[in-house]
C-alpha cells in the first residue's frame, strides 16, 4: 500500500507540472529588447579561422567588426576599413585604410598592426574558408593603411575581407595571444560580445552589448540570443509562438506556412544545383571524356520538369551562375534545350557512370530525377548517397571512383572558379581537370578591373557551359523568416543579412 501511495504522489506531481501553465507565461525569455535568432546547426567553431560560411557565421557577425561590411543588397560598406581598393592593375595588390578610435570589447584600442597580425594568423590557421586567402604573400602596414600583396590575382578581396568569409574579422591581441580561447570566447570589436555565463555551446549563444562599440546606433537590441533548433518545422513553430524572432532554419517548403502566420519571408541569394561532370578526361569513365557525351547529357534533361517536381524555391537553370549573380548570361539558358533525340545522336550508344551526392538541399532528389531522365536516352547513372555526412562525401569524392557529383554552391563565380573549377585541391575537382581555354578565361576573370568583371565572368561562364563541364539542373533560393523585426533588408545574391540594421518592430 505504501508503494501505491508513493505512486499517487508522483502522479500528482506530474499533474501539477501539467497544470503550471495556467499561472505562468510560455513566451520564455524573449523580451522586447532581445533578439532571438534560430539556426539549423551550431557554428563549427567560435574561432573565425575555423568557422564556415552561411548562417552559422552570425556568431561572428555580431561579435567581430569586419574590415568591410557586406550589405544585404550585395554592396559593401565601411566598417573597420573606411576606404579600400586595388592598387594598380591586375588585382594583385589591395589597400585598406583602417578607422581610428575603435575599441575592442575588452576596451583596448584597435591598432593597424592588429589587422596585419590577424590576417597573418588566418594565413597560418587552416580552416574551411582558407582557400579564399589563396595567393596572399604579404601583409604590411604603413600609417593607417594595410596593404595585401598577392602572387596570383584575386578580384573579390572586398568579399574576402567582409563578414561573409570571416577573414575581415579582426581579433584583439588578447585573442591572438591565446588562440585556444578563440573557440570559447569572442575577442572582437563588434557591436556585441559573447556572454559565456549564459551560453551553452551547441545549444544557444547569448550576446550582450559591447560597451566600447564605435557605432552605438547599430546596437538596436540589448541582447541577442542565437539558438540552435535543428528541426525546421519546430523552428517555424517557435517563430509562430514568438519564442524566436528570426528563423534562419527556413526552407522553401515552409515559406507559405510562415507567410500564413504573418511572418515576413526573405527569399534570395540563390545557389545552383548541378551535376559536376568531374571525370572530364575520361579516366574512369572514358565516355565522359568526350565533350559530345557531356553535351548529350545536358540535352537529355528536362530542367523545367525537374524544377517543378523539386517544388517551391526551385527554378530551372542551364548554367552554373544563378540569375542575378555575377556571370549570369540569359543567352546560355537556351544552349542545351531539352532534346532527347539530339542527346541520343550525340551519345552514339550506351553510357554508364557513377554519381555521388548528399541528401541536403535537394541534391539527392535532383540526382534521382536526372538519373530517371538520362535512362530514357540510354544513360545509366548509378547513384551513391552519403546521407548528410560531409566527411564521407569528401572521402568518396577524393577516391576518384565517381565520374559525377551532385552539389549546390552559392559563392561568387570567381570563388567557384578558383576552388572548384580550376583549383586542383578541391574535392569537387578530384580529377584535377585542365583545359587551356578554361584557364585563359579564368585568368582574364581574375585580373579584370572592376568595370570589366561582369564581362569576364560571363566569358568564363560561357566557356565551361560550351565544354559542358557541368549539368546544371536548378537554382534554389535561400530563406529567412522573421516576425516583429523591422529593417530586414533583402537577400541579394552574395549579399549578407543586415543583422545590424534589424530593429524591434513598433508595437511588438
Amino acid at each position, binding site marked *: *500500500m505504501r508503494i*501505491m501511495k508513493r*505512486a499517487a504522489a*508522483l*502522479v500528482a*506531481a*506530474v499533474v501539477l*507540472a*501539467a497544470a*503550471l*501553465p495556467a*499561472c*505562468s507565461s*510560455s*513566451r*520564455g525569455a524573449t523580451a522586447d529588447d532581445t533578439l532571438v535568432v534560430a539556426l539549423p546547426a551550431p557554428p*563549427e*567553431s*567560435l574561432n573565425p579561422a*575555423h568557422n*564556415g560560411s552561411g548562417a552559422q557565421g552570425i556568431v561572428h557577425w555580431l561579435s567581430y567588426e569586419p574590415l568591410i561590411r557586406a550589405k544585404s543588397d550585395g554592396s559593401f560598406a565601411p566598417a573597420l576599413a573606411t576606404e579600400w581598393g586595388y592598387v594598380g592593375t591586375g588585382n594583385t595588390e589591395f589597400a585598406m585604410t583602417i578607422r581610428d578610435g575603435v575599441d575592442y570589447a575588452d576596451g583596448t584600442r584597435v591598432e593597424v598592426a592588429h589587422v596585419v597580425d590577424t590576417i597573418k594568423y588566418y594565413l597560418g590557421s*587552416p*580552416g*574551411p*574558408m*582558407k*582557400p579564399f586567402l589563396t595567393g596572399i604573400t604579404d601583409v604590411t602596414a604603413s600609417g593607417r593603411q594595410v596593404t595585401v600583396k598577392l602572387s596570383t590575382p584575386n578580384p573579390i578581396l572586398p568579399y574576402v575581407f567582409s563578414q561573409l568569409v570571416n577573414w575581415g574579422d579582426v581579433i584583439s591581441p588578447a585573442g591572438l595571444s591565446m588562440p*585556444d580561447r578563440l*573557440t*570559447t570566447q569572442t575577442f572582437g570589436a563588434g557591436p556585441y560580445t559573447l556572454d559565456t555565463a549564459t551560453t*551553452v*555551446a*551547441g*545549444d*544557444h549563444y547569448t550576446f550582450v552589448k559591447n560597451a566600447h562599440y564605435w557605432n552605438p546606433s547599430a546596437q538596436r537590441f540589448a541582447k541577442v540570443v542565437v*539558438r540552435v*533548433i*535543428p*528541426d525546421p*518545422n*519546430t*523552428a517555424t*513553430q*517557435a517563430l*509562430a*509562438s514568438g*519564442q524566436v524572432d528570426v528563423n534562419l532554419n527556413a526552407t522553401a517548403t515552409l515559406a507559405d506556412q510562415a507567410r500564413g502566420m504573418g511572418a515576413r519571408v526573405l527569399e534570395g541569394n540563390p545557389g545552383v544545383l548541378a551535376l559536376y561532370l568531374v571525370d572530364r578526361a575520361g579516366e574512369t569513365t572514358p565516355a565522359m571524356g568526350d565533350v559530345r557525351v557531356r553535351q548529350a547529357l545536358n540535352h537529355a534533361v528536362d530542367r523545367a520538369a525537374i524544377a517543378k517536381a523539386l517544388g517551391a524555391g526551385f527554378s530551372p537553370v542551364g548554367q552554373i551562375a544563378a540569375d542575378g549573380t555575377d556571370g549570369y548570361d540569359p543567352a546560355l539558358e537556351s544552349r542545351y534545350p531539352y532534346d532527347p533525340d539530339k542527346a541520343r545522336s550525340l551519345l552514339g550508344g550506351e553510357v554508364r557512370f557513377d554519381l555521388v551526392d548528399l541528401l541536403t538541399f535537394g541534391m539527392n532528389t535532383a540526382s534521382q530525377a536526372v538519373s530517371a531522365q538520362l535512362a530514357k536516352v540510354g544513360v545509366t547513372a548509378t547513384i551513391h548517397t552519403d546521407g*548528410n*555526412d*560531409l*566527411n*564521407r*562525401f*569528401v*572521402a568518396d569524392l577524393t577516391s576518384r571512383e565517381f565520374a559525377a557529383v551532385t552539389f549546390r554552391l552559392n559563392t561568387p563565380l570567381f570563388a567557384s572558379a578558383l*576552388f572548384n573549377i580550376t583549383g586542383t*585541391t*578541391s*574535392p*569537387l575537382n578530384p580529377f584535377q581537370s585542365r583545359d587551356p581555354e578554361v584557364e585563359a578565361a579564368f585568368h582574364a576573370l581574375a585580373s579584370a578591373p572592376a568595370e570589366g568583371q561582369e564581362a569576364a565572368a560571363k566569358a568564363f561562364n560561357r566557356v565551361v557551359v560550351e565544354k559542358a563541364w557541368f549539368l546544371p539542373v536548378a537554382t534554389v533560393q535561400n530563406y529567412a523568416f522573421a516576425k516583429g523585426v523591422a529593417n530586414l533588408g533583402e537577400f541579394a545574391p552574395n549579399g549578407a543579412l543586415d543583422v545590424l540594421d534589424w530593429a524591434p518592430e513598433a508595437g511588438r
Partner: protein
Amino acid sequence: MARLVGGRVLWSLPLLLALSALTFVLAWLTPGDAARTILGTNTDPVAYAEVRARLGLDRPLVEQYWHWLTGVVRGDLGGSVFTGEPVSAIVGDRLPVTLSLLGLSALVIAAVGTGIGLVGALRGGLAGRLLDGVAVVGMSVPAPWLGLVLIVVFAVDLALFPVTGYVAFADAPADWALSLVLPVVCLSVGGIAVVAKQVRGALADVLGRGYIRALRANGMPTRSVVFRHATRNAALPVVNVFGVVLIGLLGGSIVVEQLFALPGLGQLTVTATAQHDLPVLEGVVLCFTILVVVVNLVTDVISGKLTPRAVTP
C-alpha cells in the same frame, strides 16, 4: 543484495570497455574525420596531414584508444576537438537535461501505463479491448510526428508551453517543468502503451489463478485481493519490461531532444557524431552506458525485492 550490486558493477566494467572500443572502431570505419570537419571541403593534403597529426589522428587506432583509456582511468575524458573544453564539463552540462527528460518520462510511463493497465485488467470486456487498441496506436505513433502535433496544438495554438528550449530547475522550477511537459509526453507515449499492455496481461493472468479464486472465495475484498496479492505477483514481468522501456527511452531521447531543441546528451550525440568529435562522442557513450547499467541494476534490485528467487541461484 550487496553481492548482487557488487556483481553487476563488476560486470559493467567489461561492458564499458567493449562499448568504448566499439565506438572507436565504428568512428574509425566511418569515412572522414575531425580534421576534414575543421578544414572543410577545400583543402590541400599538406594542411590536412598537419591537422590530423595535431589531433593525433595519424596514430594507430589501438594507440589512440589506449591514450584515451589511460586518460579515463586517471579521470580525464579529454577535450573537445573543436572547443578544447573538457569532455567531463560538456557532458556534465548536458546530463541534467537528459536526466530530467528521462526521469520525468519514467515517472509518467510508470504512473499512466500502470493505471491504464490496471483499469484494462480489472474492467476487461470492451474497456480492455479499447485500451488494447489505444496501446497499439501509442506504440505505432512516430515521435517526430507526435511532437509536431503537440507543438502546434499546445505550444502555438493554445500557447500553454514553450515550443523549444530548456530551463534549468535551479533557475526557475516552474519554467523547468513547463519546458519539459511536451518532450516528456512525446517521449512517454510509446512506453505508456507497452507498460499498459504488460500490466494488463500480467494482472489478468494472475487474477485467473487458483489462489486468487480461493482468496475471493474466502470473502477477501476485491481491493485487497488485487492490491495486496495480485499486483505483487504480476509486478515482476512488468518491472523487467519497464527496465527495457527505460533503456529504449535513451534512444528516443535523441530524437526528442533534436525536435524540441533540448541541450541534452541526445543533441550532443548528434553534433559530436556529425563533427567526428571522438572524445565528446566517447564521453556520451560512456555516460549512456552507465545509465543503462544503473537502470539494469535498479531493475534487478526491484526484481530481487519482489521475488528473492529471481536473483539467487
